[in-house]
């Protein structure tokens, strides 16, 4: 599904990704871990198509196609989704209006007509129930005045609405209390299938207790320095990152 080869990227001339290699197949869950500033969020943004990041070398192949030249919206239309670490507040645009526009623009890109209003409402009802979101919440301005937990739950609601092939969850667990974490993880697990894949970026084991990864990778200094199974995450939780830094720097 996703194949990243020797990816180098920089922002404002500062090199951040220094040769990432990663392959993700349909049905898989990958966890990306690593200390602050190691390049995890940069990798997520580069895959999603943030223009401020410049790819200086390497390729990003999604579903057999090099997507490096595609705009963020074109990648979204192909099924890439990024759950933001810091979802942006957009005053004046309601959650519902935002989702309606996103879904219909995606359909338009695929040559489909707008989703009928009735169908849209049904979808919204279904997915908001999945994430245990109050209906009143949907008419509020997007992320404006939302608590940290509400913002993250809203991200997964959007993911549920858009049904992406590849979902990248960038620190979706930060700012969540244990109940919200369970709801979010439960939502992600219900949306999982053999045809889609998830990348979970996190600092903590606790999310991975709910969303169990097939592979765990450690990013340090712009490279994947260690990969393993779910057991690696437990080891990191116990021992921290210093032993990995020592291994790399040795």
């Amino acid at each position, binding site marked *: 599904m996703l194949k990243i080869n020797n990816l180098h990227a920089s922002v404002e001339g500062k090199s951040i990704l220094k040769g990432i290699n990663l392959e993700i197949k349909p049905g898989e869950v990958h966890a990306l871990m690593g200390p602050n500033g190691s390049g995890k969020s940069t990798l997520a943004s580069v895959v999603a198509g943030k223009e401020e990041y410049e790819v200086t070398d390497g390729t990003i192949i999604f579903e057999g196609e090099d997507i490096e030249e595609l*705009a963020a*919206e074109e990648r*979204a239309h192909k099924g890439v989704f990024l759950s933001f670490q810091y979802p942006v507040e*957009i005053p*004046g*645009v309601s959650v519902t209006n935002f989702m309606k526009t996103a879904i219909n*623009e995606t359909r338009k890109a695929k040559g489909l007509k707008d989703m009928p209003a009735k169908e849209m409402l049904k979808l919204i009802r279904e997915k908001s129930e999945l994430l245990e979101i109050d209906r009143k919440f949907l008419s509020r301005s997007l992320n404006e005045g939302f608590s940290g937990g509400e913002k993250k739950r809203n991200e997964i609601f959007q993911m549920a609405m*858009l049904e992406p092939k590849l979902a990248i969850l960038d620190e979706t667990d930060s700012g969540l209390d244990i109940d919200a974490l369970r709801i979010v993880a439960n939502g992600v697990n219900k949306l999982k299938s053999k045809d889609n894949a998830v990348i979970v970026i996190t600092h903590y084991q606790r999310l991975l207790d709910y969303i169990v990864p097939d592979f765990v990778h450690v990013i340090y200094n712009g490279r994947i320095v260690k990969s393993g199974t779910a057991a690696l995450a437990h080891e990191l939780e116990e021992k921290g990152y210093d032993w990995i830094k020592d291994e790399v720097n040795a």
Partner: protein
Amino acid sequence: MDLKEKLVSSFLAFENHVDLDGYVHDVRTDAIKVFEEKGFPSKKEEDWKYTSLNSILKEDYSVFPKQENALEYKDIKKYFIHDIDTYKIIFIDGKYSSHLSQTTHDGIDVCLMSSALNKPKYQLIIENYFNKAATKDSLSSLNTAFSSEGAYIHIPKNKIVRKPIQILHFSTGNESATMLQPRNLVVVEENSHVQILERHQSLTSNPVLTNSVTEIFANKRAIVDYYKIQNDNENASLIDNTFIKQKRESLASVHTFTFGGKLTRNNLSFFQEGERIDSTLKGITIIGNKQHVDHNTLVHHIEPNCESHQDYKGIFADSSTGVFNGKVLVDKEAQKTNAFQANNNILLSDKASINTKPQLEIFADDVKCSHGCTIGQLDESAMFYMRSRGIPEKEAKALLMYAFSNNVIKSVKIPELKQRITNIIANKLGVNIGFDL
């Protein structure tokens, strides 16, 4: 002969032609003297520092409509709010079109200034109200000198006018360049309520200059909502002078939606002559190319316990320029005044500019007055967020701009008008998305 000389020398012929004695004649004669003395405003005047009329004054305007021109409703239907029942007062090249209008004298007067100026039964109201709100600045005086036609609206007390009133001024472009000076008078008596829409529309690319004066009187506990749609083509310029006098416990609002025109200047003044008055001034400006829009507002708080709310949003693309000059004057007697003013702007291009200047002059010591202005660009992080959800760049921009101006649109009380404004904005931004879910 320049435009000023032409106008001054035309005055005598005009006065003979309209043949009026008494009050209005005196007012006109005084007004032409003021204009003759002051002339058109120049950039040397503080209020005109950022707006130059030079480029629009050099045209050789025809200052009186020479012939009557007709229009078919089907050709101009799109300029009306046509999906609801309304009163209509329609002018073509400054002349009243009875064919297109729908006026009334049934309990209320929705009719013509020319009849009000000529018929004895309106004399008392004319003498009590005509030119009693307009200030003696040069452009208003020029309009006063030549005032002969426009809308006349008188709502007696205790009337809720269910149908909005539309005032439309069309110019056909049958003259190579036309100057129009419509004069509107709106008198709303105690406890009455009226909604008015006004639009100026040029139908060809010949230059048009409109110097309009509207006087509005909201008497005790009256409610007046006035909406201006300014979406003319880029050869038409508008100087709109609107004066509102309010008596106690009245509510008056003016919404100004400016999307078109070459040069648009809105001089909007509110005078609060009573206690517990509420005044609302809101506007959305979305312009591009070399368009210029200048909002010059004044709210004069004269009595205690009143409120004013100003909220102007501006979006400027290409080489367009904007001005916001908002003055709030609080007299010494006007204690417990609440005055709010906000002017927020987005510049979409390096060549666009806005000059914004809030002015607060407060002589009372127990008031709440706030003002704030912002100038910024579209939020890049919001753009990426929206695009990452599949919303293309153009649509994402449009949605952000719509959201930016949404709280002004929200306060429009006529749903069909709200929808129309929304459609014009979508059209202006070149997108086909429904903003209103």
